[in-house]
């Protein structure tokens, strides 16, 4: 369990984390979501004692991380790919870490197989791809079979198979009763992995809720395709229903669920060839939540910039 209490971090005059408090529960994947520069990595670094809080505290099971007798069995953290010596082999890196806690060579071999490092474990880290580095980082985090896992942007650089693997790993770890804390700047990533979300913007928490709550609070929209778009639009008109025409055959309807739309279409004798609940609401929610909190915003279109 990770607990943050009124956590602050300033670097010189810049405030990276501005008084956040949260409590992460075991058995759940908690997503830590926010734009780049919102303070996610800093918070995670403070959780494992790499950075000192300017004020406030962050503890693991009630104690600062550095006071635990078996840190690697308490927390496994993947903070950035490449926190390794490039001249060492992957296996040497894992063995060096394992030695600190008297972790056996068979466990080292086990995490190498588990993370799919395989042959690469015998090669120098210098030649690793970003994806390989991520796998090595995850292998290192799993070495101690820890109760808490902290992954900072774990899918960066992974191929689609790797991304799926990280998701199922996070889910599996949580199902075993571990506390899993995963950061991302992509809402779509979180919507597939997390049970609970903490959304950060400019060093402050702007949402801390179960993911289904955030989903439910969003507007529901349905994409409808039909050759008789105009007829259907007329049939659907009602209070609280918003209809936008995407193109000649496509409507986006909000304020009405797919079942009702289908029924109306039957009544109006309109043939519908697609009826899709829109799953992007979480993304929209996220954009809405963080809209005022992004630090770096795209400054306009390229055409504007060229002028």
């Amino acid at each position, binding site marked *: 369990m990770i607990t943050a209490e009124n956590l602050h971090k300033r670097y010189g005059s810049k405030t990276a984390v501005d008084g956040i408090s949260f409590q992460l529960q*075991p058995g759940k994947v908690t997503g830590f979501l926010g734009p780049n520069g919102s303070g996610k990595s800093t918070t995670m670094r403070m959780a494992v004692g*790499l950075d000192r809080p300017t004020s406030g505290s962050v503890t693991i099971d009630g104690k600062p*991380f550095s006071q*635990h007798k078996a840190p690697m069995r*308490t927390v496994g953290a993947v903070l950035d790919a490449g926190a390794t010596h*490039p001249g060492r082999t992957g296996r*040497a890196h894992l063995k060096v*870490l394992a030695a600190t806690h008297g972790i056996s060579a068979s466990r080292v071999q086990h995490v190498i197989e588990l993370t799919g490092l395989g042959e690469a474990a015998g090669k120098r880290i210098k030649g690793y791809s970003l994806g390989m580095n991520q796998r090595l980082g995850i292998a290192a985090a799993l070495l101690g079979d820890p*109760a808490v896992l902290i992954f900072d942007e774990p899918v960066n650089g992974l191929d689609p198979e790797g991304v799926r693997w990280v998701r199922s790993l996070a889910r599996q770890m949580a199902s*075993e009763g571990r506390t899993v804390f995963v950061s991302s700047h992509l809402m779509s990533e979180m919507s597939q992995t997390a049970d609970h979300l903490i959304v950060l913007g400019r060093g402050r928490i702007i949402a801390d809720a179960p993911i289904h709550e955030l989903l439910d609070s969003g507007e529901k929209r349905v994409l409808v395709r039909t050759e008789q778009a105009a007829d259907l639009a007329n049939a659907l008109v009602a209070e609280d229903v918003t209809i936008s025409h995407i193109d000649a055959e496509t409507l986006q309807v909000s304020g009405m669920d797919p079942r009702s739309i289908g029924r109306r279409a039957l009544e109006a004798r309109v043939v519908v060839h697609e009826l899709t609940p829109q799953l992007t609401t979480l993304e929209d929610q996220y954009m809405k939540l963080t809209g005022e909190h992004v630090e770096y915003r795209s400054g306009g279109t390229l055409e504007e910039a060229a002028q």
Partner: protein
Amino acid sequence: MNPPHVNTATATPQTFTIDATLPGVSFLGAARSEFAKLKALRTSWWLSIITVGLGGFIAGAVAFSFQHFLADDPYFGGGALQLAMQGQTGSYFAMIFLGSLGVIAITTEYSSGAIRSSLTAVPQRTLLLSAKALALAVWTAVVSAVLILLSHLLTSLIAEPLSVGDIFDAEIAGVYAATWATVVLTSLLGFGLGALLRSSAGGIVVLAVIMFVLQIVLSILYGVTDGAAWVETLMQAEYMSLVDSFTNPEAGEFSMVPAIETWQAGLGLLAWVAVPLTLGALRFTRRDA
């Protein structure tokens, strides 16, 4: 009948518990890990091989020239102790090479980013730094012992009047032990500088300044001030002068300022090493990694 609905988000989760019987972090484990890091670092091997190779070469060259002088002039005033000390000239190079290894042993963690992995495995920073220092000391102790023994072997086999068995002579053994200690201490000095400056180049340059530049500057100052007493004190407290006073029983015979007692020199060397090491440790334990 509907199947029971399981919702991972609301189901009461079990909590994973750590097996308390498994070992936690230990100083010995951390030291073993740090030693393995040194072993895996190519620079360690290169610097150590150069140290031993160059030291052996110098010992051989010294022995041959000693033998040469002795053949020309049978009254050439070199005893076994003289020859033994000359044969260890390679230890000066050992000091700069293994001192640089001391710097690199810590700065490489910062330049590579590996420090973040190290600190998430061992967040007890004082423990990590001490383990690192111990591993380095063990490594340099072994390398310099090999260097000293090899140099002794070469000198005693090539030249008279030193014989292999003279290593058990109290005075000669004393010189060797003191030389051995200064090499290990200098590597720790480098380590302290590395922890303090977090830069390989910076640490090695400062080490070189301490070893080679300070004495030149002080000698010039000594001349300029016409041999002022305070400059003399500084010269005696200067690092390489302390090394000389500590390792050479005949120290001061050919130098500008008189040598100080061996124990005083030993304390002086410890102070030289302790200051950057303490400051480096303070920085290491307080700063963000």
